[in-house]
């Protein structure tokens, strides 16, 4: 009975982690969406048991700067084939990069429209831009 409750709590925590980009739950949810997969089919693809699935979702997402090390750690922790897991995460990284680029008005967009200031040359008076 108690273990059922604990399993429910872990599932609920995993569901809440799906809105948080720092968790694997979000990566797996996005992958399911873009690939049109069910949770069961993705679980089967990765070879993770039903009981372990919320645990995998509650792992932190691999960092870009330590990608291989982090993916290896998660893969070993759940007996997942490392290449398969890495491919899924890389795919989601790419999707998110494209999404960020597609957002109009994001920081940096205006830079292209700004007039570049002229550098003053040492020892010379500033030239008028009307000249």
């Amino acid at each position, binding site marked *: 009975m108690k273990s059922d409750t604990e399993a429910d709590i872990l599932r609920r925590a995993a569901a809440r982690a799906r809105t948080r980009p*720092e968790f694997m739950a979000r990566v797996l949810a996005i992958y399911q969406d873009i690939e049109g997969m069910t949770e069961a089919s993705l679980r089967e693809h990765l070879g993770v048991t039903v009981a372990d699935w919320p645990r995998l979702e509650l792992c932190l997402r691999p960092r870009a700067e330590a990608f291989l090390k982090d993916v290896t750690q*998660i893969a070993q922790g759940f007996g997942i084939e490392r290449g398969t897991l890495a491919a899924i995460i890389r795919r989601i990284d790419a*999707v998110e990069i494209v999404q960020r680029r597609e957002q109009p008005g994001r920081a940096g967009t205006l830079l292209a429209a700004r007039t570049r200031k002229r550098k003053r040359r040492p020892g010379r008076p500033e030239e008028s831009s009307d000249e």
Partner: protein
Amino acid sequence: MNDPPDRNVLDALHQRLLLGDRLASEELSRLLLTRLIEEVGRRFPTTDNQIVSDGVIDAVLDYCGDPEQFNADRGVPLDRFLATAAWRNVDNLVIGERRRKQRERKVGSKKREADVALDPPARKIRQEEEDELNRRCAAMFDALTDPKDKEILRLKLEGVRDTAAFAKVLKITHLPVAKQQEEVKRHKDRIIRFLRRKGLLP
């Protein structure tokens, strides 16, 4: 109740999180969630279990995402730090829920008098009102052709407020949260406008 978690175990998990260990978050969740939910639930005995568990889960997930918010040098054990954060979360959720219910009561009191249920003729009228409401709900569902729109309407009628639930229906959980909120609102507004045009909503 179980023994409190070993402080050394918690300190070790904190160190692992600081060092970027990817598995420490799930280990910490397994170790603390059930215990903290039980503990915080005792502090909020009349509060819905789901609200308590949401508050506790958010506290643990917030910490795992940013472990530097906990300073071990202050001498407070990690589980006490998380319990405090969870109490605060649940408090905020309870206040939000109370305000929502107050708003609902305010709106409801304008529609019907409180003693209607005790008066047999009034009860009949009330039953007729409920039948009418059910008919209108059925008409609204019939008017919508897209299964996603029907599902959104169902969630809305059930009073669901969680964006994630609507985002899942719309299959937009891969979008950033702000974008999800924007899209969910756009879909809800579109459905309401459509139902108003059809004369199914005031």
